[in-house]
């Protein structure tokens, strides 16, 4: 009778035991550990209670471990629960803390039940034996099944170095990388993609990928999402939108990779603004060159035209003025008349050169070939001494030539230096 009462009483205060246990676990720093919820706790609590009942009801069995193979009693359900693949994230350390705390919480309750002190001691001892045997089994099983596994499982497993490297590469690649899920929402984005769209991580995650492109681009992306089979890759140039609404050209490469039973689309985005700008610049430069060519051709043509015009003018002048004068000189009997025609001819020849950069001077025509030679040297800035050496003539001869030149050019008595006079003359 006492037995039933004991177990029933204990079962009744299950709730309180759970609260106390939870508190103690948290104080011990196990607040976020797996299996620490009420349901799990109740199952284990029940298992212990059933074992306790059994101990009282079957006195032939014993909670003591005996070498003679007599079955002994322990919390079977708990041990079953701990079999491989079912341990629900518990490791041995956590299990022991969990279980020992639970037993001690139950034990604390026993004195509160109205029993004789003998009965109380008996109950506590029986409970402890069950606990010891359960632990023994648990540890034995653990060693049997889990010799390979070691280390504790607490919280998310630490990142391995290769995962860290992968993460670092993902974040730092020069092209934008986005991962899109079945809702077309971005679930992962690297730093470059944030910069491309002008959105921080917090904003770009959860954004509908279609809102980052102009309509046709968005449609194309949707089409790709529907069409692509796993592992396939497609790329296209589309127009994307920066955070301030400015559009920019981009190349997107969409692939499909399925995991967690769902379709996902990794997208590589490359901002083509600078490439397009370079292309545009190249096109413009090419066009400019072509225009320049055209202009040059036109200029060449007009120069040719000018030359022809000039030739025509000279030819016309020769036929209308010079040749008739020559004929007249030929026919003129008088020396005086011939002389006047010669002067006229001279004038006409000079007039032919009007409009030239360096006009002919009538005086220059009177010079002899040697005198012109001397003039050229003077023009080049040579001294008389230089000239006599250059022409292998005596200094005096050169001086004579200079005197004659000045006379013929009507420079006698003028304060003009021969070099200065010749500067702009065409020789």
């Amino acid at each position, binding site marked *: 009778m006492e037995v039933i009462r004991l177990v029933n009483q204990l079962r009744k205060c299950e*709730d309180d035991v759970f*609260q106390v246990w*939870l*508190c103690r676990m*948290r104080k011990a720093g196990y*607040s976020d550990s797996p299996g*620490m*919820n*009420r*349901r799990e706790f109740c199952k284990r609590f029940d298992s212990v209670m059933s074992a306790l009942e059994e101990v009282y009801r079957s006195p032939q069995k014993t909670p003591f471990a005996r070498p003679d193979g007599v079955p002994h009693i322990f919390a079977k359900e708990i041990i079953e629960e701990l079999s491989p693949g079912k341990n629900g994230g518990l490791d041995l350390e956590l299990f022991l803390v969990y279980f020992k705390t639970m037993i001690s919480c139950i034990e604390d309750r026993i004195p509160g039940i109205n029993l004789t002190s003998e009965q109380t001691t008996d109950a506590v001892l029986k409970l402890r034996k069950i606990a010891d045997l359960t632990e023994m089994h648990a540890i034995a099983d653990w060693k049997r099944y889990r010799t390979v596994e070691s280390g504790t499982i607490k919280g998310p497993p630490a990142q391995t170095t290769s995962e860290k490297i992968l993460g670092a590469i993902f974040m730092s690649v020069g092209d934008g990388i986005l991962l899109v899920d079945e*809702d077309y929402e971005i679930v992962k984005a690297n*730093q470059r993609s*944030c*910069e491309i769209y*002008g*959105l*921080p991580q*917090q*904003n770009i995650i*959860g954004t509908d990928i279609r809102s980052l492109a102009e309509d046709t681009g968005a449609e194309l992306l949707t089409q790709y999402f529907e069409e692509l089979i796993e592992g396939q890759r497609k790329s296209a140039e589309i127009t994307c939108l920066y*955070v*301030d*609404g*400015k559009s920019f050209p981009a190349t997107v490469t969409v692939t499909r990779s399925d995991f967690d039973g769902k379709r996902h689309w990794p997208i590589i985005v490359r901002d083509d603004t600078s490439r397009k700008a370079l292309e545009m610049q190249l096109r413009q430069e090419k066009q400019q060159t072509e225009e320049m060519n055209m202009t040059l051709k036109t200029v060449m043509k007009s120069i040719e035209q000018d030359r022809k015009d000039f030739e025509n003018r000279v030819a016309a002048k020769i036929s209308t003025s010079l040749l008739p004068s020559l004929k007249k000189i030929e026919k003129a009997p008088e020396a005086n008349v011939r002389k006047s025609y010669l002067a006229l001819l001279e004038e006409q020849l000079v007039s032919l050169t009007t409009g030239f950069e360096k006009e002919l001077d009538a005086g220059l025509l009177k010079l002899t070939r040697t005198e012109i030679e001397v003039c050229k040297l003077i023009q080049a800035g040579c001294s008389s001494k230089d000239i006599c050496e250059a022409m292998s003539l005596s200094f005096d001869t050169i001086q004579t030539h200079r005197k004659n030149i000045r006379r013929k050019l009507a420079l006698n008595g003028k304060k003009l230096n021969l070099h200065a006079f010749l500067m702009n003359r065409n020789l």
Partner: protein
Amino acid sequence: MWDEEYDVVIIGSGFAGLSAAIEARRLCSSVVVLEKMAVPGGNSIISGGLFAAAGSPLQAQENIDDSPELMLADMLAAGHDFNHRDLAGIVAEKSAETLQWTIDELGVKYRPKLSHLGGHSVPRTYNTANTSGSGIIRPMLVKCREMDIPIRLKTFLSQLITDESGAIEGVAVIEDYIFPNRESGIGKRIRAKRAVVMAAGGFSQDKKFRAIQNPMLTEDIECTNHRGATAESLIIALKAGAIPVQLSMIQLGPWASRDEEGFGVGSMFSMLAGFPYGILIDLRTGERFVNEQADRKLLVDAMLNFDRESIAIVDEMGVRHASTLEKCLKRGVVRKFDTIEELAIANQAPLIPLKATINAYNALIEKGRDDQFGKPLPKDLLPLKHPPYYSIRLISKVHYCMGGIQINTRAQIIRIDTQQPIGRFYAAGEIVGGIHGASRLGSNAITDCIVFGRIAGGNAANEPPRP
């Protein structure tokens, strides 16, 4: 000596910086925004996109009686009167017109329903249509592009350059900066013909600096901010003579999820559904312990007391207010259960006390009694009895720096030795201290940033240009 020259140079591309840029660009010909990170928007773009305004069109529509005075009173109550009252007053005063500006000038889309956030006397919070600060930042970035305001990314402020009179003349920056590598990039000097605006944000992610200000905020306390929320620019402003104000007042967010990093999607779930329409319980007792609609400081203090392990529970009716629900469920931040029993088991909560808590709470609502913790029980609040039930595991995370540098009502930064404004030097946003006192009310930050961003930008652009 200078590599470049702009009328106004703005440090930071969040709400404050972009508002300043847009306002300045309307008044002068060249504005540049410098951002040290590789993406624009700072912490603003990942924020919840909540905008508090007193006297808004939606309030009129819902017959909610509100005024700037009431909003200011709420700010002072939450801030324990540590607030610089003149600055807080401007935020409340200009809240409604600034909200309107975001709608008219930027084309920001808001949900057609107000939210009632903890510590506010009345519902006055607008939600962006996408439940994110990006709902405001994106239109701002579009506007900047249209107005020809360059936003120079990866450009880090390394030094402020002053002229002989002590006024700010320009900035030394590092271009191609790779945060947080101080050895990266190339130096450059940019001249500000009119002024420099500091809109560099808070330092919640600066674990060393925040621990100096408040040693209780140890390195292992998580943070809702983006990783660029560090103190470099604040320190540069202090070096230039700015006055530090209440730097130790650093707010933790009570609504963040234990099951995701940063601000995530869970924070908005708690803010919009879990706290107003659900209950907050301690897992170890199954009992409520605080007014779920208290301001953040009260909530966090209550949650951290006695090492409480808090979850928020809300039912099918309440969850309708949570615009991030789907994402929360998808990421496992919020879990859904058909019964309270299942919820209790999964969260390892004691079932009987939890049921008692829910029954008592439902009785309050049904019988219209006052809550012992003082939770406001508006008429649309329903008892928690419509399955399925949802739970979110909570942990307090560092969220906002109330402290910063001192400005006057014109957003000019004040010099510590003379108490006079530093010439051609403005600030706006989280880098400014004193506006929110000991605790900022939820959804007041965006209001503050945009109100003072516009003031700073406008005044900066109105400075006479240097020759």
